[in-house]
């Protein structure tokens, strides 16, 4: 009977040092700070921790952060797909420029983005002044939070889906067409399923980015407790009040929920990918 090996031998040398370095690096950069976060809030005691994170203000902030981040990611998947479609499938003057514009939310300091968005969506701003008469207020409301999160998340969806859409085999659509599928059926039954794994990746990245977004959101949100205050801001407020344990408690809940969310998304990704490439 042959013993099962712990790892399959590889022709590539240096597995040991490479794995060691990877673990060290991840430990130093990711695990250690997070471990500190996990350790911190317990000085409140279990009951104190529970009381700290179930305050109505905390619950409202968590609800807004996760709700808006999910909604923003969903909005980004839909409109990011449209943007990607146009960038990949059509050739038009200024396409390269439009392609570059997609990356701007990556590069801009988020505070600058927040101030710019606020200026535009405020009641007297370019867009806000049109929306105000319709009874739609964006700046200083939860809707403003959503707008800022959509802004920062857009590139993630576009850049996740773009390479996959570029590599999409034109023959697939031609095959579908000769088999009698109309344009809508070709998109819904052939193209979108092929893009689904990339869309999920883009959703996960945009969600994670929106959840952690701070700079742009706090300018446009108005930050009214219980209404338009996001969880990261609440953490900062507690820190400023020297309530380090209370801040860590909120942080820990965010960490847990975010990990849960990303895990779910990755699982669905695995299932989607398994169908295509077993």
């Amino acid at each position, binding site marked *: 009977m042959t013993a099962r090996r712990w790892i399959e031998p590889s022709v590539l040398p240096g597995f040991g040092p490479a794995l060691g370095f990877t673990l060290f690096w991840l430990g130093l950069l990711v695990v250690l700070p997070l471990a500190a976060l996990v350790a911190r809030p317990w000085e409140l005691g279990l009951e104190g921790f529970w009381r700290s994170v179930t305050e109505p203000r905390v619950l409202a902030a968590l609800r807004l952060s996760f709700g808006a981040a999910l909604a923003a990611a969903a909005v980004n998947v839909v409109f990011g797909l449209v943007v990607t479609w146009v960038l990949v499938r059509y050739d038009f003057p200024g396409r390269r420029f439009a392609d570059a514009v997609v990356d701007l939310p990556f590069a801009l300091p988020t505070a600058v983005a927040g101030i710019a968005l606020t200026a535009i969506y405020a009641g007297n701003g370019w867009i806000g002044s049109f929306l105000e008469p319709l009874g739609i207020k964006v700046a200083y409301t939860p809707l403003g939070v959503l707008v800022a999160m959509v802004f920062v998340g857009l590139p993630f969806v576009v850049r996740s889906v773009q390479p996959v859409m570029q590599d999409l*085999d034109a*023959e*697939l659509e*031609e*095959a*579908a*067409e*000769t*088999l*009698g*599928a*109309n344009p809508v*059926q070709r998109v819904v*039954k*052939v193209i979108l*399923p*092929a893009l*689904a794994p990339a869309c999920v990746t883009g959703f996960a990245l945009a969600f994670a980015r929106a959840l952690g977004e701070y700079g742009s959101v706090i300018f446009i949100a108005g930050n009214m407790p219980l209404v338009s205050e996001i969880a990261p801001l609440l953490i900062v407020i507690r820190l400023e009040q020297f309530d380090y344990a209370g801040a860590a408690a909120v942080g820990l809940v965010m960490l847990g929920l975010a990990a849960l969310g990303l895990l779910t998304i990755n699982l669905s990704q695995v299932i989607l990918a398994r*169908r*295509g*490439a*077993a």
Partner: protein
Amino acid sequence: MSLSVENVSKRFGRFAALDRVSLAAVDGEFLALLGPSGSGKTSLLRVLAGLSRPDEGRVLFGGEDFLRLSPRERRVGMVFQHYALFRHMTVADNVAFGLKVRPRRDRPPGTEIAARVKRLLALVQLEGLDKRYPAQLSGGQRQRVALARALAIEPRMLLLDEPFGALDAKVRRELRRWLRQIHDETGVTTVFVTHDQEEAMDLADRVVVLNAGRVEQIGRPAELQAAPATAFVFDFLGDSNRLPCKVVDGHAMFDGGFSAPALGPVRDAPHAVARFRPHEVDLAVEGGVPVTITHLSARGALIRAECQAEDGALFEVDLLRDATPGSLAAGAKVRLRPRRVFVFAEAAAT
């Protein structure tokens, strides 16, 4: 239904992919489009499928103007070289695709679709694989799924674009035989694109030889072998030896004072090139091209001899193994005398 292509031209910029191509196929015929890459065979197939519009010309199918119809309306089954299967669907869903996308009033009920898928998978010998995904199949199996998918819509015509090009030689021969069987069972008019002359000769009722966007010759495989119309057809359909000659009254006269009957369109010419197949050569004691055998290789009942003349010209000769003296070896000096040759008009230019 019968197919008729009349003077179809298609250009990409200054490159003429198709140059006034005309051909016809009768109902139920198996037609092969044969040519090297860039000869326009795939362009022509795409025009037939409706995936590309010709600049000029007409395509009639069953008397109907085919160019007016969209690919969906033509109801032709297309099989691509790289299968073009839908990776996210099971084998059964791939095959059922063309039925499921039909508008509700034309769509067969679910039970009938399932029954038809089952029948088709039996026809292509893939029973029991209906729940697999394309990624779990071998290349040959994938191409059979692609064919079943194309047949599911009960196509009026079947178009195949180098369907076996990506498969290894053995699977290819197997699928070839089996494709011919399916054609004979279904009786659907079939157009098959290939660059492999053996495949075309083996499968098709008639072969259309294409070169640089033009039809060189159309004919039954035996006709093409017996009476190639142009030098291109002769060279493309098999190994070819060349020897300068002059043609007098249907006889090719060679330097060295020997001659052979000249077939082909040229009856008289002061300067011409005679072409002959490796198996249509005799070894002669005198009166023939003096050559040195450079290499001998055994090929079943034949021995292929590679020979070089003094001026460097190379010849390939097939000798019957049983009729060849065992003393023949590389380095031997022999004389080659073609039994019969072909002389083509264009050959003078080369």
